[in-house]
């Protein structure tokens, strides 16, 4: 299938009655494509991710994710849709401090029956498999408290969580910016490999241009967003 994972047309967005933050005439990301979205902070990247993940409602235009128009869905349906089809990795603070490593990874299965059902043979085994794949496979890693992990390990737990239950789209918002270059490279490698294995589309946001060659395609926010950076508020 070569249909689009994400299809944006004439997207406009502003916070409340403020000045526009996004004005994107067209953006298409194919299924399985790994895209790097670059741009300085404050250029509307996070806002775009908020809209694509269904947290924010598009102000105007169409945002089609996996063939469904997010703009036509009520907020609750967008939340459920995100839970079912999108894996998210933040820059930092991805984990709930009161859950163990494995429990953090299994979080999507708590909220989405769809993600739960796609874990084979079951969420716990799948969680453990992802831990091994992402190099988190110490004997007692699973039951470790996440506050005892290094930042690099935390980001790998976040990646495992984003990949649990094979969501069609993985969105990563500068997940490597807190890592040094060695850790960054190994993290990227693991993430790419797992996205490939799951045939997940990857939308990766970073201001780090050196990452470019690793992706199928690079996009600069300025090239797709007609709102100028200095006008954008978030």
């Amino acid at each position, binding site marked *: 299938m070569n249909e689009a994972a994400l299809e944006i047309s004439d997207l406009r967005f502003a916070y409340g009655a403020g000045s526009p933050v996004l004005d994107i005439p067209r953006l298409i990301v194919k299924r399985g494509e790994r895209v790097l979205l670059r741009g300085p902070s404050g250029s509307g990247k996070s806002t775009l*991710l908020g809209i694509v993940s269904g947290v924010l409602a598009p102000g105007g235009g169409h945002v089609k994710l996996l063939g469904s128009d997010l703009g036509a869905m009520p907020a609750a349906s967008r939340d459920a849709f995100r839970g079912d089809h999108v894996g*998210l990795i933040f820059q930092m603070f991805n984990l*709930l401090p*009161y859950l163990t490593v494995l429990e953090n990874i299994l979080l999507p299965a708590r*909220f989405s029956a769809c993600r739960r059902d796609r874990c084979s043979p079951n969420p716990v085994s799948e969680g453990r498999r992802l831990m091994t794949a992402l190099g988190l496979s110490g004997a007692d890693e699973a039951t470790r408290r996440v506050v005892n992990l290094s930042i690099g390990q935390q980001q790998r737990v976040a990646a495992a969580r984003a990949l649990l239950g094979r969501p069609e789209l993985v969105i990563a918002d500068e997940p490597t910016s807190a890592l040094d270059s060695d850790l960054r490279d190994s993290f990227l490698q693991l993430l790419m490999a797992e996205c490939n294995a799951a045939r997940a589309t990857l939308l990766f946001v970073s201001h780090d241009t050196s990452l470019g060659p690793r992706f199928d395609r690079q996009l600069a926010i300025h090239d797709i967003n007609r709102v100028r950076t200095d006008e954008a508020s978030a």
Partner: protein
Amino acid sequence: MKPLASLAVRSIWNRRGTATLTVFALAVSVMLLTGVELLRTGAKESFARTISGTDLIVGARSGPVNLLLYSVFRIGEPISNLSWDSYRLVENHPAVAWTVPIALGDSHRGYRVLGTSDDYFSHYRYGERRPLEFSEGHAFADEQDAVLGAEVAHAFGYSIGTDILLSHGIGEVGFHEHEEHGFHVVGILAPTGTPVDRTVHVSLEALAEIHGSEEMAGLTAFLVGMKSKDSVLVMQRALNEYRQEALTAVIPGVALQQLWQVVGVADRALFLVAALVVLAGLIGMLAMILASMGERRREMAVLRAVGARPVHVFLLLLIEAVLLAATGAVAGILAAHFALAGAASWLASRYGMFLSPQGPGLFDLLVAAAVILAAALAGLLPAWRAYRNALTDGLAVRT
């Protein structure tokens, strides 16, 4: 709801230090409220079941409540005695079925000694008109005989045939013991859950003897049973208006009602204070949850990322408030019951209050429900704030 409840529990557990203090504060406040109510109903019940079947209590002129307290509950001191003449007048009155004389003023190792006649054992009634029963022995037949209440016998391990000494006055330690007047225990009464259990009974003649006279100088009070209930009010008025001696005659039930009226004001004030303390506990809980919200905005963003809706975030905080309050309420109620059960004998010995042990009841259920409901209402505030944050924060936490 279920995934949220387990998350709420884990989240609280993660903050168990502050959460424990919050629950503890709530538990103490609920314990106070429940304790006040248990004491109130317990005292009322205990007092109400102490005397029954007696139509009038007669003493020297004093307040009705005072007379009731010292004659029946052994609380406080009589102001003065009444004369034998007055007693005999009533005793021989044709409308009177029986009388029981009461003379107080001595003690045995902290327990009151009551001088009376045989009639006490046949006419005194408590609870649902239950007569006194002997668990061992019999009523006094001789001037050296004593009949013990169940608790007195139990406290000192006395049994039939034990010799005891009486002291003048009612302190724990008498100034001078009537050493030459030892008594024989001839009877032990079955437990009644009334001040009778804490009383040493001897004959009036024996009391007079140890005070060095032929006859007691006077009586503290006496109980009267009328042949017909119709004559109770007439007799009461006649005694209250008796010219030869200033007397007070009270109907026990009426005097108890007066007592409740006096106590009622303090009662309600105490209840109000306890309720306010519970409110303070709830406010403490609210402050704890609100204070935790800043650092937990990221937690909410993570939950949103994995598919939680803003209403889930709302419910999570509401569940947290309800869980904390429910734990505090249950702990407080149980603590109150255990504390009162533990203090039962002390309350009985110190205040003459015999609490019949009872498990958690309707009042406790209402308290728990009210606390949980109030917590849910209070929890709406942080829940609403978290809900608003979830909407505006989106995935990016702006802190």
